[in-house]
């Protein structure tokens, strides 16, 4: 640096301090990555052994020794419940975001809604499960565990995530597009459906997929809504198995074969979640506005 000749040189002590501080910051960053590496290493090391064709195509048998069965019912159950939760939460979540961006804007009511949506993101998932349990499982609206009740618990969890991510994306649609359409005489609803939603689509898909990825790994809300079964079910008003619940149960068993199945299921679940995250990122790349 040419400035060196003008300014007094940096003293050795300060330079050493700078080096040490930088090294510490780098070390902390590397430490932050250690758990990720370790988790993936152990998932592969202990989980790969469990995985086979039989693992994906058979239901848990409930046996402690011998053949424990696979995770077919868990995979299908997770897909069914998360799909239903997505069907519920995506329209509502994007609808609320549309209200906030297109109609509410900076009004008092809109900021109250925004605040409480934020509050909802901070509510622990187990409390959502508890809520659905109180209202739907033991309440007057019918009794007993059912897959659709699990899906509702998951959708409560996804709703605020979808709303806030959608709001950010919808805000990115330039006002000039809306104004151009208005000037051409288009009614507001056409602007929403023909211009705002299509131009924000990649971002909306990304936000929804991330919410799906989060819901797929949630255990607590399903624990007392969809409960625990072994068999595959396609009836959403029955009890239903799911991947996180299956893993949670197997971990608690003093049986090597069940623990092995838990590792295999965990590996499968993490791969599923990572794939969803990856797809979400790829979709985000296609977005026109950033």
């Amino acid at each position, binding site marked *: 640096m040419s400035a060196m000749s003008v300014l007094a040189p940096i003293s050795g002590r300060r330079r050493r301090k*700078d080096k040490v501080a930088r090294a510490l910051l780098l070390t902390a960053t590397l430490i932050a990555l250690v758990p990720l590496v370790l988790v993936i290493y152990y998932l592969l090391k202990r989980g790969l052994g469990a995985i086979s064709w039989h693992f994906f195509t058979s239901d848990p048998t409930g046996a402690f020794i011998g053949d424990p069965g696979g995770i077919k019912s868990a995979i299908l159950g997770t897909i069914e419940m998360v799909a239903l939760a997505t069907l519920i939460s995506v329209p509502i979540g994007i*609808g609320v975001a549309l209200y906030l961006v297109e109609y509410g804007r900076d009004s008092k009511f809109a900021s109250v809604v925004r605040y409480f949506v934020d509050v909802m993101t901070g509510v622990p998932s187990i409390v959502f499960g508890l809520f659905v349990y109180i209202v739907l499982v033991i309440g007057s609206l019918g009794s007993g565990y059912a897959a659709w009740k699990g899906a509702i618990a998951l959708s409560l969890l996804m709703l605020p995530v979808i709303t806030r991510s959608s709001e950010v994306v919808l805000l990115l649609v330039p006002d000039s597009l809306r104004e151009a359409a208005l000037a051409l005489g288009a009614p507001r609803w056409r602007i929403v459906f023909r211009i705002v939603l299509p131009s924000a689509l990649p971002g909306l898909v990304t936000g929804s997929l991330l919410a799906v990825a989060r819901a797929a790994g949630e255990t607590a809300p399903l624990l007392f809504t969809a409960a625990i079964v072994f068999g595959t079910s396609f009836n959403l008003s029955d009890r239903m198995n799911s991947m996180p619940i299956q893993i949670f149960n197997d971990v608690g068993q003093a049986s090597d074969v069940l623990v092995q199945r838990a590792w295999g299921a965990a590996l499968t679940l993490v791969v599923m979640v990572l794939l969803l*995250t990856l797809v979400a990122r790829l979709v985000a790349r296609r977005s026109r506005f950033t």
Partner: protein
Amino acid sequence: MAVEATTTSMAGSGRSPLERPLRARFPDRLLRWVLTALAAGILLLIAFFFVRLIVEANPALSKFGVLHFAFDNDWDVSRSIYGALPLVVGTLITSAIALLIGVPIAVATAVYLTELAPRRVRGPLTVLVELLAAVPSVVYGLWGVFVLIPKLKPAEAWFGRTFDFIPFVGADVAGPNYFIAGLILAIMILPIVSAISREVLATVPVGDKEAALALGATRWEMIRIAVLPYSRAGITGAAMLGLGRAIGETIAVTLVIGNAPQIGGTIFEQGYTLAAVIANEFGEAANNPLHRAALIAAGLVLFVLTLLVNVLARAFVVRGQRKRAGGPAQGQAAIAAGGPPV
């Protein structure tokens, strides 16, 4: 005119030739109503949520009294006595450990990624840190039970023996304990604290940083005098949002805390947390109304606790952002999205 093209099908009897007849305005009103109703529905839902929790928790709260329920150190299902202090204390201890370990690392990571990392590695490193958030809670629990607990036990025992003069450190190491739970929580809050800190750090005006450098500051001095003071409120908010997460985290903690309703004397003893007790005892409580009410009351305490923490955190982050006038509130959006944009 294009306007006419879209309105030719309508009878043009309005006051203005551009005004749409009622029938054509209907979809607009409908959409507006539906969307407003959805937004209002969220508020009603949360209110309903709160009321139902209180109603269902009432049998336990009225039997023991709110204060006794929250502050009695006796949770004994067999005697039907429910004092949640061991659970509250367990929640606070594990969250404190999580913050002590997680926040410094998360903030250091954020500072490194925003101020020091070479451009080429910045993107990949950011993605890797955020991937920590993609691992489901139950998987961290599984890993904690079968890897962390057995592998760390010797290290914990050594630490306990060597440093037993420090309060709350002891040589008796239970397999599952507060420390393991806190460590796993630290890993789980790391990505969100780091992501929000990064966004807060990104708002430091370039002018401030350049001014520090122009005065001859080294990179570290620039960070210390220009970057960190400016972002203090925002980073505090990020840490508190991490705290909110740690308090409410259930499944991973349930698997590694030991589930003993007692207040352990050291961080290496077994304990329990509010969230873990709900997950764990729910099955047996199904046919015991008082037990069930006690668990719902524990959920209520948890709800109120996370609510308070989140409200405070938000106030801090917003205060941090008010400093710079205008500009999109990116940090807030990330917080709101419930985590880092993985």
